[in-house]
């Protein structure tokens, strides 16, 4: 799959929702914990060496699972291979909670679900489709039928 690294690098420089130095261990066997600057930008999690401007890598946070591991640590895995886990070590339990919360909300599919939920609820209360006022009520991504059970 072709993609332009420069486009992703530009995205990694956008304002971050969350950014911190965390311990990070990749999914490969024998990987060791390394200090990384971890940055959440929209639905991508970028990680940098602490002395470099360009990211080492990025994780697209769609269809991922955020799991609490030992105290102060969590992992990210993806549905197609849940055994492959990226581990993160935080400096406190509080920081860990904060990151897990932010990561769980950082997917386009989560946004889509929230949007459809709010749209339905507003329709139930007011009898009107709130998206009509913006002329976007027909868009495929806002349709209930698109939602997985």
């Amino acid at each position, binding site marked *: *799959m*072709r*993609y*332009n690294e*420069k*486009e*992703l*690098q*530009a*995205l990694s420089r*956008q*304002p971050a*929702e969350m950014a911190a130095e965390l311990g990070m261990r990749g999914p490969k066997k024998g990987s060791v914990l390394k200090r990384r600057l971890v940055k959440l*930008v*929209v*639905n*991508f999690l970028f990680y940098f060496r602490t002395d470099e401007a*360009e*990211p*080492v*890598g*990025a*994780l*697209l946070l*769609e*269809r*991922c699972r955020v799991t609490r591991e030992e105290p102060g640590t969590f992992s990210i895995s*993806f*549905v*197609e*291979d849940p055994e492959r886990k990226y581990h993160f070590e935080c400096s406190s339990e509080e920081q860990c909670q904060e990151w897990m*919360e932010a990561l769980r*909300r950082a997917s*386009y*599919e*989560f*946004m*889509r*679900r*929230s*949007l459809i*939920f*709010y749209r339905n*609820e*507003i329709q*139930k*209360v*007011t009898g009107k489709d*709130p998206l009509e006022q*913006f*002329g*976007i009520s027909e*868009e*495929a*991504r*806002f*349709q209930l039928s*698109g*939602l*997985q059970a």
Partner: protein
Amino acid sequence: MKLNERSVAHYALSDSPADHMGFLRTWGSPGTPPTPSGTGRRYWFVLKGNLLFSFESRKGRVPLSLVVLEGCTVELAEAPVPEEFAFAICFDAPGVHPHLLAAEGPAAQEAWVKALSRASFGYMRLVVRELESQLQDARQSLALQHHSSWKPTASCCKPQARNNRSVVLENGHPLSKDCSPVGLVEEAGSRCAGLGLAERELQGPASLLLGRGQSPVSPETSNFSTLHDWYGQEIMKLQQHWQQRAQGRQPECEEQDKP
């Protein structure tokens, strides 16, 4: 730079809904040799969230390319072949070339430009945030309505429920947990219509999903209607341009700024 490509490809093929799809022609993305006739290459494109994928064909199972639609603009463009309905995805980053694409007709072109220019995560976040506050307003005015028309004789609910509900109104925090248990129990027991509605409505999946009073939207995002107007203007301009082009079919298409 590494990317979790397997997961990205998996997302491209997953059963979550595609936001737009169709055939487009493309020129000169890095790695593709130019076609001798200059007509570009035809691929199947799928827009999913803020990601644009291309496939060899409609049934392709391996995404060939990925463009992340963040920090970019979508503009009308001149294609190497005049009869194509071209547009470009442009990034404001050094050394990044625009992605030149062309649809098969004006309607498809318009639909693609619309879909791509609204595909960013930020746009989605603003819509969600706007609806979230509209829902809060709607529930509050509904609750007030019920509250003012409430008469003890017309209802089978115990006064307790009513007290409980004024707490909801006073603290103005409809997603808070404190307001639900009594109201819900009352309602389940007595099946009284109306009064318990607001409480019941509070128990939607998103309020559980989002936790207490939490929004999926970050606080720094700006006002949705402003942004929507802004996008709207851009699209109006495009439409004008298309109409002119359809009427005149002029060889040069630089007319869009004239009145």
